[in-house]
């Protein structure tokens, strides 16, 4: 008899765990998507929670997965670090640009090269220029570091430099952090990463003589940049708390936080 009671208690406990997960969903806003938007959404969510008490969850899955999550109704707001494709818009999704992110071209600090133009970057990445000495560097083979197919950063980089499907990568890594670590450890590597995530371990190149910064990205003079997009469903209204969050982050009040996160606010 004792055993039965203990088993019953156990069952009750297990059921309790599940119901606890299912309940109290009302006061949270679920966001899902681009790994590059971690910093900005994290900061905005924290501020929003402080002001209103509503929790904002963020699932770093990647732009494609975030868009898919909105489509399937698994989250309130999708996050994408690229513009929506026509197919996705046709599926009833809507985009709102939150901010602009500069994509920094990074090399190892030991590399003497400081400036490249977009065409040269494209030539390097398509394998037309193979040695650093051709562009004023050391006599060493250029090691191309990129992101995996489908990554928002890769998509952004390749569409800006017009090198889609033509890049001859030496390594395709699955996160911004990996790209930075690899470039920092190989003197002949070149890579690209979201400006917001770049650390001092790598050197950021100027493009056409323009250093990527908030100002140059906003006024468009730094050309390697892409939008951070909020994805919502066109004909389905957001939940009350999600709408509050949406209004909050697209308002001017949020700009300070967006700037602090290293990207340039759009509104």
């Amino acid at each position, binding site marked *: 008899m004792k055993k039965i009671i203990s*088993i019953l208690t156990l069952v009750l406990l297990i059921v309790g765990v599940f119901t606890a997960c299912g309940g109290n969903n009302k006061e949270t806003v679920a966001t899902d998507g681009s790994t590059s938007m971690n910093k900005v959404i994290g900061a905005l969510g924290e501020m929003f929670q402080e002001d209103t008490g509503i929790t904002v969850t963020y699932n770093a899955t990647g732009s494609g997965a975030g868009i898919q999550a909105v489509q399937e109704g698994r989250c309130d707001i999708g996050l994408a670090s690229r513009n929506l494709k026509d197919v996705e818009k046709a599926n009833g999704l809507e985009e709102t640009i939150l901010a602009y992110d500069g994509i920094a071209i990074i090399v190892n600090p030991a590399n003497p090269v400081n400036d490249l133009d977009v065409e040269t970057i494209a030539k390097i990445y398509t394998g037309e220029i193979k040695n650093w000495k051709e562009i004023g560097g050391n006599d060493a083979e250029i090691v191309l570091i990129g992101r995996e197919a489908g990554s928002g950063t890769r998509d952004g980089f390749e569409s800006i430099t017009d090198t*889609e499907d033509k890049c001859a*990568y030496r*390594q395709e890594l699955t996160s911004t952090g990996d790209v930075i670590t*690899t470039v920092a450890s*190989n003197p002949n590597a070149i890579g690209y990463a979201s400006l917001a995530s770049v650390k001092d371990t790598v050197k950021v190149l100027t493009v056409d003589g323009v250093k990527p910064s908030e100002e140059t990205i906003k006024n468009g003079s730094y050309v390697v940049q892409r939008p951070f997009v909020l994805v919502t469903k066109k004909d389905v209204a957001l939940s009350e708390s999600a709408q509050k969050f949406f209004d909050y982050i697209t308002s001017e009040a949020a700009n300070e936080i967006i700037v602090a996160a290293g990207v340039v606010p759009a509104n």
Partner: protein
Amino acid sequence: MNKKRLFENIIHGIFLVLGLITVGCVLLITVYLIVSGLPAIKEIGLIDFLFGKEWASTAEEPKYGILPFILTSVYGTAGAILIGVPIGFFTAVYLSKIANKRVRSIIESAVNLLAGIPSVVYGLVGMLVLVPVIREIFNVPDGASLLAAIIVLAVMILPNIIKVSITALDAVPKEYEDASLALGATNIETYFKVSVPAAKSGIAAAVVLGVGRAIGEAMAVMMVAGNVANMPSLFQSVRFLTTAVASEMAYSSPGSLQRNALFSIALVLFLFIMMINATLNFFLKRDKEK
């Protein structure tokens, strides 16, 4: 009496359900993989899919050939076995037969610790230490390569090989060894001509287990192999079956041929692992029948 019977039956039922959960999971995964893996193979064509040499899933004219992944997985696993098995095997013989108790307990706990290290840590150390070292030693532009993956995998399968081999060697009856020694064979002769042959199916099982671990590893390999869909070569950046699925899954859109093709890769990997498991069962069963 009746109450007791009922209680027994209830417990029996609970255990049955718990057991069926495992079976259900296996069935679910198998059915799911087959159902979601077959459409892409049908669309691409089995021959083009398995023997196509080019993978460009997001290109305007996508190509879905997974031969580079299959060969990389096979070469990578073979390389890891080539390095890992001799080291693991001799370590096991030493620990089981030659080492004194203290040495054995120290080395064994080190092996257990090695087995407990998460694969992402192997990957990280490989990325920060091994990859630059390979670049320097072999004077190649970049160290992320098949070789780096092979070395990481070889270290990762060591604990499996050592532990299973030790168990097999420990189980050899002492009488065999005593008989051999009584006939005038030296210790080393006895270990390699009597103990090892007597434990050979256990050691074979250890190797197969190592193969299974190596072919299924994704995280560590993803961090050191470079992940470009090249045909395998020792100093080139390569992509394994596992990493092919893992690196593109997050970004592929559902229902697309790309996503389906990733499921097909998973299905191929699944079949590989099934084959390895069947081999393992074969060795273990043969061991039991003796």
